[in-house]
């Protein structure tokens, strides 16, 4: 699968709360971040968790989020970040333009 996003792209994490083995932490759902790097392609852990093959491999990204945007009560400077690896199917292009 060709990577849809590139470093520097602004993305939003989908808000969905399914059952199953999901590696997108709840605290980041609905948040906006920037693609920090393309990590490569990997089999989908949501499928591997049930003994299936998780193919085709799909792109994984490291996404950087400003802590102030993630937590309403964050203590620290605006430059602080949380970096999380997220699969492409959890990311939407951020259509809000500043």
């Amino acid at each position, binding site marked *: 699968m060709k990577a849809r996003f590139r470093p520097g792209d602004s993305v939003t994490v989908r808000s969905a709360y399914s059952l199953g083995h999901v590696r997108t*932490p709840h605290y980041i759902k609905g948040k906006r971040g920037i693609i920090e790097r393309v990590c490569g392609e990997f089999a989908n852990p949501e499928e591997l968790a049930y003994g299936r093959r998780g193919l085709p491999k799909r792109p994984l990204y490291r996404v950087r989020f400003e802590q102030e945007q993630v937590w309403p009560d964050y203590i620290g400077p605006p430059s602080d970040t949380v970096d999380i*690896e997220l699969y492409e199917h959890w990311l939407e292009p951020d259509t809000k333009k500043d």
Partner: protein
Amino acid sequence: MGTPHDHTPPADSDAPLTYHQTMEIAVRELLIEKKIIDAATLHHQVEKMDARSPAMGAKVVARAWVDPEYKQRLLTDSPAACKELGIELDGTLLVTVENTDDVHNAIVCTLCSCYPRNLLGLPPDWYKSHAYRKRVVREPRTVLAEFGLELPDHVTVRVHDSTADMRYLVLPARPSGTARFDQEALAKLVSRDCMIGVAVPHA
């Protein structure tokens, strides 16, 4: 070795077995009898893991401190750089993140306990604790202060939540006052906690 009821005497054999300890013995014996695993390979894996420790990570850090080109190779391809030093990571996708004057990195796995085990050995209990997993993403500076590390606001704190296959090694900044130290002496300054990002090394 090899009889169905062979079991290595546990180090904890004075206490009665817990339910889960009983389960472990039973499952292991059944799998060995069914020839799904063998006792020698299992024992070898235990020894392999035992041989891993933060000293291995410290060796990598010390080399990066004295050799800027090695450091670049480490930042670009950590498993290959570890292999140069004879450290085999068995497929771990290690990523090194560098502390600088402006950035401090800290690692967590909020969803479970992912940790660069094949470099540093088994993680400390606190890393796997619910309190650490809950708090360090949300209030890293407070948690780091509890560990004795206070960082000024001009230093960006970057928390890495290990949600996928990458495992993180924090490359701490070389402390001042160490210009004359050789690699061995430098490695001694690098604790496990520095490589997780809850501490920094001091001369």
